[in-house]
């Protein structure tokens, strides 16, 4: 059957025929890198357009509809504008850090792409600690934000960065704990294992109450971790104008902007992998007609469908809720999410030991 | 309370008050040096209870300034007007912003617009006008701004 893994294998074989294995590997790596960068660009364009459309429809507006058919070229035009704009570096800024920070944000986002399974057997690096890798690397994001905030030599930026630091560090806990729930149920940190464990039904269906709770907590925590409303305190515009990227303009701003959307994509992809089965089609039980019918839909469609559903959910939050205050944000984490997710992890463990899940 | 009763009460507090009943509300003229002490009494007095200063302004009469204090009582709902005549060359009057907090901003506005000096005001600086406008008081009748003024 035609699939992404099929194409990948064909290319692999073809390259191995032409070159020796070392060169083939190097070329493959370069190709993967180019593919990731290409995916970044496409995702950036698509997600920005999607956000603007979702926002517009929720806000009883039309949204972008002038550039290209149905406004599809709007984000292209925006990108062009951002590239052409002058990238200012403020006088008092720490120039090296100021210029490096947006790239660090991008590099972190790129690293996070590695263990994501986009389709059946189509994955950059199926390392055995895949989920741990994701949680570890995603916490590096805060470094770029702190660098940007500090080096801008602007009080608004600094406040935004400090808020963001407190926020990301604390919300990683409950995000990690809710991921742990799935790891306990699966018994593996490897992404492919987690997906294969959902062969007879996604965790959200067969995991009962603890997984539902874990899913809700995960969504809340990653919304906070990616600094999106209602947890966008790092860039709370009515308080801190634009938070940590107040002083950024042009392409450097665009990189932050892009990194935010890529991060949203990645956390949603991880969420889809853990709770909604990744590329795994909707299965109930084993070997029945329904499952076979579902298998006809390509696995990449399943993956992107689930991911974009979660992205929509996060956008939906953003355009509905007001922003929290910094102390309420930390209250929510330490007084509500963390205790709940700890108890939930205990429940999930008990359930895994007793074998109550399907 | 009717105007007559109010008059009686004010006379009790301040015997040399001069009244003017031509307007809608009772006008009382008070000398500048007596004003802050009287103001304190006006708020504290249980029959007057003038706890709400709803308008504080100044009028430039070319020969002199008149500070106008519009006072009201949220308890009895009567309104009284107090006027303080000031010397145009050296306008000075005691502040009332410790009695009615709203006077702090209003007095700063009068200070910059008319140049009236409010004694013992905690923070008498320009509020609306930019730095460097000290001494030029736009709402005085003899003020001329050659750049921005449109005369019709």
């Amino acid at each position, binding site marked *: 059957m035609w699939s992404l893994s099929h194409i990948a294998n064909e290319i692999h074989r073809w390259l191995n025929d032409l070159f020796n294995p070392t060169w083939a590997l190097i070329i493959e790596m370069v190709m993967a890198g180019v593919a990731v960068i290409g995916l970044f660009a496409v995702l950036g364009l698509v997600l920005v357009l999607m956000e603007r459309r979702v*926002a517009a429809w*929720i*806000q*009883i*507006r039309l949204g972008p509809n002038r550039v290209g058919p149905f406004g599809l070229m709007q984000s292209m035009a925006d990108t062009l504008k951002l590239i052409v704009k002058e990238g200012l570096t403020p006088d008092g800024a720490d120039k090296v850090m100021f210029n490096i920070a947006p790239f660090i944000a991008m590099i972190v986002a790129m690293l996070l792409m590695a263990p994501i399974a986009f389709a059946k057997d189509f994955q950059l690096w199926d390392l055995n600690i895949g989920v741990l890798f994701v949680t570890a690397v995603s916490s590096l994001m805060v470094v770029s934000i702190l660098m940007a905030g500090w080096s801008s*030599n602007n*009080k*608004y930026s*600094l*406040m935004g960065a400090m808020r963001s630091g407190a926020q990301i560090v604390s919300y990683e806990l409950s995000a990690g704990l809710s991921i742990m729930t799935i790891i306990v149920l699966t018994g593996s940190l490897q992404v492919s294992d987690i997906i294969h464990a959902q062969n007879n039904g996604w965790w959200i269906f067969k995991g009962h109450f603890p997984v539902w709770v874990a899913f809700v907590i995960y969504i809340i925590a990653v919304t906070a971790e990616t600094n999106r*409303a*209602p947890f*966008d*305190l790092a860039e*709370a*515009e*009515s*308080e801190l*104008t634009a938070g940590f990227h107040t002083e950024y303009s042009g392409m450097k701003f665009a990189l932050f902007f892009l990194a935010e959307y890529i991060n949203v994509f990645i956390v949603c992809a991880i969420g889809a992998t853990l709770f909604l089965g990744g590329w795994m089609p909707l299965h109930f039980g084993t070997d029945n007609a329904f499952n076979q019918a579902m298998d006809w839909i390509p696995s990449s469609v399943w993956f992107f469908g689930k991911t974009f559903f979660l992205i929509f959910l996060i956008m939906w939050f953003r*355009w*509905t*809720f*007001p*922003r*929290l*205050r*910094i102390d*309420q944000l930390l209250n929510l984490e330490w007084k509500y999410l963390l205790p709940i997710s700890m108890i939930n992890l205990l429940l999930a463990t008990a359930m895994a030991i007793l074998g109550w899940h399907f | 309370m009717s105007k007559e009763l109010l008059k009686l009460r004010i006379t009790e507090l301040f015997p040399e008050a001069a009244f003017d009943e*031509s*307007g*809608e509300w009772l006008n009382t003229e008070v000398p500048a040096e007596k004003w802050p002490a009287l103001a304190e009494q006006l708020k504290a007095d249980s029959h007057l209870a003038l*706890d*709400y*200063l*709803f*308008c504080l*302004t100044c*009028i430039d009469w070319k020969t002199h300034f008149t500070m*106008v204090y*519009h006072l009201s009582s*949220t308890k009895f*709902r009567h309104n009284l007007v107090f006027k303080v005549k000031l010397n145009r060359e050296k306008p000075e009057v005691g502040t009332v912003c410790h009695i*009615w*907090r*709203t006077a*702090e*901003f*209003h007095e700063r506005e009068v200070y910059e617009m008319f140049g009236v000096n409010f004694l013992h005001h905690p923070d008498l600086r320009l*509020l*609306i*006008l*930019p*730095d460097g406008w000290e001494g030029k008081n*736009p*709402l005085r009748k003899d*003020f001329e*701004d050659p750049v*921005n003024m449109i*005369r*019709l």
Partner: protein
Amino acid sequence: MYRQTEIVQEKSPGIVGESGEFTINVGPQHPATHGVLHLVITLSGETILKVEPHLGYIHRSIEKMCESLTYRQFIYVTSRMDYLSAHINNHACALAVEKGLQLEIPPRAQVIRVLMDELTRVASHELWWGAMAMDLGAFTPFFHAFRERESINDIMEETCGARLTMNYMVPGGVMQDIHPNFQRRVKEFLKLYKQKIHEYDELVTGNIIFQNRMKNIGILSPEDAVSYGCTGPTARGSAVSCDIRKIYPYEIYDKLEFDEVLEEGGDSFARYMVRIREMQQSIRIIEQLIDNIPEGEFQAKTKAVLKLPKGEFYTRVETARGELGVYIVSEGGTTPYRIKFRSPGFSNLSVLDHIARGSKIGDLVAMMGTLDLVIPDIDR
């Protein structure tokens, strides 16, 4: 001669002073200030130690301008003060001139004026509601509020010929009779409003995040509210009865059935609820009047050149933000000798420092939002 931006000098060259305090400039261009308000905030971490307003970025010296305008002309300037309740400002000025002329206003004009005032009040509160939610990070209510506000603006446009600065009130009545469609359009608006009013609660009022952001911040005691000269919803949120329409009724307000909205508490949420409930009271007034507009003249006969007798005339009206006082000192000429506008925003702003101390910077926007500051009204 253009004014230069005030640059606040810091004591220490670094970002944070020796005592850990630092100042930030909120405004004159800042998303939360809705205009050119400039606040210099002294902070310690996220906690506000002091708020110091620097005003005057939109000061046009309207009081000085009015001294050279005739009694017919000066009304239009006041639309530019509190542009969200332009009708009510015009109304106050017209009332002051009428008080001087001792004019009797035809009943039809009175009813039209009150109707327009209340429509303006609803429109102003709609905008405030949207902007308030936007300050707190919820963008959607802003657009939903504008939907209702637009339909009011359309009504205004049809009858007064403009959407924001109408200049519809003239001494003696209103400039033109109401448009033939007016009653139908207002009834349509009432229907729309009633269909959509529950959304306000669903989207914002009932929201747990919003309530947590608003409750127990910016607490203003009734004594302080009076002492600082707060009026309008700001003071009524502290249970200070100060509705001029009730206390010193003008036009036909004494014949109308409506409640003065009072809320205990004095926090931002109380001020928010006052405005939300006040909109419903305004709707109630409109409903009472819309079918009962008396026939007759819409303008009293006035002379072409108005001359006020020598004396002082003070009128107070209730705008959407509080008490607006117009103080005219006349020397008997065609132009006022001195005009003072006692604007509600000016006094309401002065309380900001008092209520903001000790709270977080995120609360500052919530407090500024509930004070409902309109900067041209403050600067005049």
